[in-house]
């Protein structure tokens, strides 16, 4: 059993990172060439890490399952990226960004990591501008900012509604430059199947070529996972179709603890579900809440008429509308954090005020913003989002309010890592959304891009050297070593097992069932009974999967059904751990809302005495109970309070 040591350096919070860098071990240039680093994933964290480590002179191998590194799902992030530049002179600072992030995370994130994140945030913006990212600017030629949820300042930099795209293309460009310089070898359409451990250290990976089906191994002195979140356990989410937990889950089964799996983010503003054929949910950026006002009808009778199509929302008078976020949270209004906004929408819909045929929808209205600023300004700010909304729903949001509802969006939980971003397996690092460290129980808007790039550009390139410095004597290993061959054999056995089930059901049909179980019981509101029910249901779904699955085609060729199947096998196991984690956490915090634990006003009620820790779960073997380890969190620079967005 590994010991949970978060390796947070001593000293004052404000000096920890500087002190760490001053005293850490480094690798000299001649030795860097002798060290191989495997990086899985090419999103913001993966691509920025691969480019930065390649620039330093390491030999990097970078993998992605998509046809090009540029497709990674960071590309879909819309609204923006936070940084503590304080360009608007509105009182921002590194401390304030740190404070807002810890508070937004409902006091369940590690203080030292978050402070470091805030500290390096400014460099990310500098880096992006130097790479040629066309961030939004003001007429004076300087960078513009907008506001995001959970903050009283404007600190969000953006490139229209495509900030993630521009930041990813910046990192992808830097990566392309290193591929050209041959410091990085790129493997597209290649998926991680397992992690190879030699003498207790991560030393390589087994991959499957998605076009030919070929299984092969790669050696690395260190392995870095930058494989994103696990929202697709819910089947419907804002994640890409291919996003999956498998790399993180394989790491987990090889000894990496998995932390806070029940902390998932439900984003308040997505286009509502419209049918059982639906394959994914589309986000409408949080930035829209800068100008959009959220409401439902005040009277149930009006809501009913709207649901039946007898009344149009734009004809409902002001006094008949309930701007419930402005009513409940006067200080933050429509810009409350995501967990709060999502629950408030659910509360109104459950009470019978929802719109849409299903009753599961609320309005996001731009009428007053258009009156105040003119249609042109709104078009400039959100044009591409309005167009996207129009294409999907066939409605014109300039004339009628958008219909929105919360949907699964982001995973705060993930592989447990220490201050150096290393998991409990030596030499196995986890960066970006795939790790658990910075967002606690709820992530603030525009902080995912910040964390992915902070990890990849400015944190990992330092901390990984501290590990590699004593590895310079380790020669490159032959992938014919028994450890590699054994891992390859296990992968082949798994694939054979999946193909030989020869049952009746498609992968998606089982995945959809898992999704409904998760959404109903491990979603926006949870309770003991529902979580126990989910555990039962997942158990039977697992059995159904392993006895009644049908995969056409071959192992040794392109087979999309087989890909989906081995990803779902891991989602089923993760789903179980999420329910267990949610059941054990007898409190409400951030995205984890247990109905048994709420204030009289229906807000999340934490239990700081018993749950101020990250729950790091150890895999104990097939059909064995996970073992809980507590990464106890202490707050020395922040007063822990009940979150209050009312005043």
């Amino acid at each position, binding site marked *: 059993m590994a010991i949970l040591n978060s390796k947070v350096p001593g000293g004052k919070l404000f000096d920890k990172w500087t002190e760490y860098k001053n005293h850490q071990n480094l690798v000299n240039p001649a030795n860097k060439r002798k060290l191989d680093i495997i990086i899985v994933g090419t999103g913001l964290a993966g691509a920025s890490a691969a480019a930065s480590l390649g620039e330093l002179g390491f030999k990097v191998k970078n993998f992605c399952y998509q046809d*090009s590194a540029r497709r990674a799902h960071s590309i879909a992030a819309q609204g923006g990226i936070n940084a503590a530049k304080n360009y608007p002179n509105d009182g921002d600072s590194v401390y304030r960004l740190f404070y807002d992030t810890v508070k937004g995370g409902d006091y369940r994130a590690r203080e030292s990591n978050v402070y470091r994140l805030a500290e390096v945030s400014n460099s990310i913006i500098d880096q992006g501008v130097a790479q*040629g990212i066309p961030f939004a600017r003001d007429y004076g030629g300087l960078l513009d900012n907008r506001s995001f949820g959970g903050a009283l300042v404007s600190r969000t930099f953006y490139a229209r509604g495509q900030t993630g795209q521009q930041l990813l293309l910046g990192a992808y460009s830097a990566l392309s430059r290193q591929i050209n310089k041959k410091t990085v070898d790129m493997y597209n359409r290649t998926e991680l199947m397992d992690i190879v451990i030699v003498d207790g250290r991560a030393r390589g990976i087994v991959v499957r070529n998605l076009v030919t089906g070929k299984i092969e191994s790669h050696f690395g002195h260190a392995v870095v996972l930058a494989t994103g979140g696990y929202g697709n356990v819910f089947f419907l989410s804002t994640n890409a179709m291919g996003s999956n937990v498998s790399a993180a889950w394989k790491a987990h089964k090889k000894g990496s603890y998995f932390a806070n799996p029940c902390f998932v983010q439900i984003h308040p503003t997505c286009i509502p579900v419209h049918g059982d054929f639906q394959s994914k949910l589309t986000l409408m950026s949080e930035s829209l809440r800068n100008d959009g006002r959220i409401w439902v009808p005040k009277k149930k009778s009006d809501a009913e008429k709207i649901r039946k199509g007898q009344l149009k929302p734009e004809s409902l008078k002001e006094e008949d509308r309930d701007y419930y976020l402005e009513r409940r949270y006067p200080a933050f209004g429509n810009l409350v954090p995501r967990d709060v906004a999502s629950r408030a929408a659910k509360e109104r819909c459950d009470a019978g005020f929802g719109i849409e045929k299903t009753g599961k929808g609320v309005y996001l209205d731009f009428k007053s913003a258009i009156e105040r600023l003119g249609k042109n300004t709104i078009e400039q700010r959100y044009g591409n989002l309005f167009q996207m909304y129009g294409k999907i729903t066939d409605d014109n949001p300039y004339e009628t309010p958008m219909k929105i509802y919360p949907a699964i969006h982001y995973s705060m939980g993930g592989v447990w890592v220490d201050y150096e971003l290393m998991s409990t397996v030596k030499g196995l690092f986890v960066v970006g959304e795939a790790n658990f460290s910075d967002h606690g129980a709820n992530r603030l808007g525009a902080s995912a891009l910040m964390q992915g790039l902070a990890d990849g550009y400015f944190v990992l390139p330092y901390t990984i050297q501290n590990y590699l410095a004593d590895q310079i004597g380790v020669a490159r290993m032959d992938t014919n070593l028994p450890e590699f061959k054994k891992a390859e054999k296990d992968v082949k056995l798994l694939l054979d097992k999946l193909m030989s089930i020869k049952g009746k059901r498609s992968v998606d049909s089982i995945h959809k069932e898992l999704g409904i179980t998760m959404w109903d019981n491990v979603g926006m509101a949870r309770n003991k009974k529902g979580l126990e029910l989910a555990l039962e249901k997942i158990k039977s779904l697992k059995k159904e999967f392993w006895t009644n699955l049908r995969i056409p085609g071959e192992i040794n060729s392109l087979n999309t059904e087989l890909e989906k199947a081995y990803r779902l096998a891991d989602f089923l196991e993760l789903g179980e751990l999420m329910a267990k984690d949610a059941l054990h956490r007898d409190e409400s915090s951030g995205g984890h809302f247990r109905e048994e634990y709420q204030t009289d006003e229906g807000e999340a009620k934490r239990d700081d005495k018993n749950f101020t820790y990250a729950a790091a779960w150890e895999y104990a073997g097939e059909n064995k109970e996970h073992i809980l380890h507590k990464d106890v969190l202490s707050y020395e620079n922040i007063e822990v309070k009940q979150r209050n967005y009312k005043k």
Partner: protein
Amino acid sequence: MNLTLKIWRQENEKAQGKFVTYEVKDISPDSSFLEMLDILNEQLVNKIQLPIAFDHDCREGICGMCSLYINGRAHGPDEGITTCQLHMRKFSDGDIITIEPWRSRGFPIIKDLMVNRDAFDNIMQSGGYISVNTGGIPDANSIPISKENSDLSMDAAACIGCGACVATCKNSSAMLFVSAKVSQFALLPQGRTEAKIISNIARMNREFLCANFS
């Protein structure tokens, strides 16, 4: 609505391909084009037949992975969107829809509707970047850039690299893809300090046998 689909099927790059006709029933006009294909694939899997291979990922119109030629048009009949944003309300009951992969020598077919777009990555690697390393960068506001140039640069930078321009061009030219990157950088002071445009175009000429360049 009920539809007849004529879909290009091809086992691998070398194999001979052909159109195969399929029928789908009760498709909701609110479903997306790719969801319609999901429904067809579910039917095929239930009959233990190979599903149709097609590229897709974000299904939000931004990753650039989806790539279908629908009724003779890249990304289908609607304007300004990718295939994943195309909705079935653009079609009518009883329609016959022809679905092909991107057609270009620069994009060899991998299987069915899936093509290999490595050529775009190759172009990017040959000069689609500003040569700066991580760190040691001046403050982001140290060089003001006019809003107009910045906005125009963003217009170009918004290219999603899907390859529709190549598939549509009779000469299979990647000129639009390359010019988007060139414009993005040329409009910014950061991009003007080095001129890698030539190597970019030379590379493009190798990957895409374009008649307008000699």
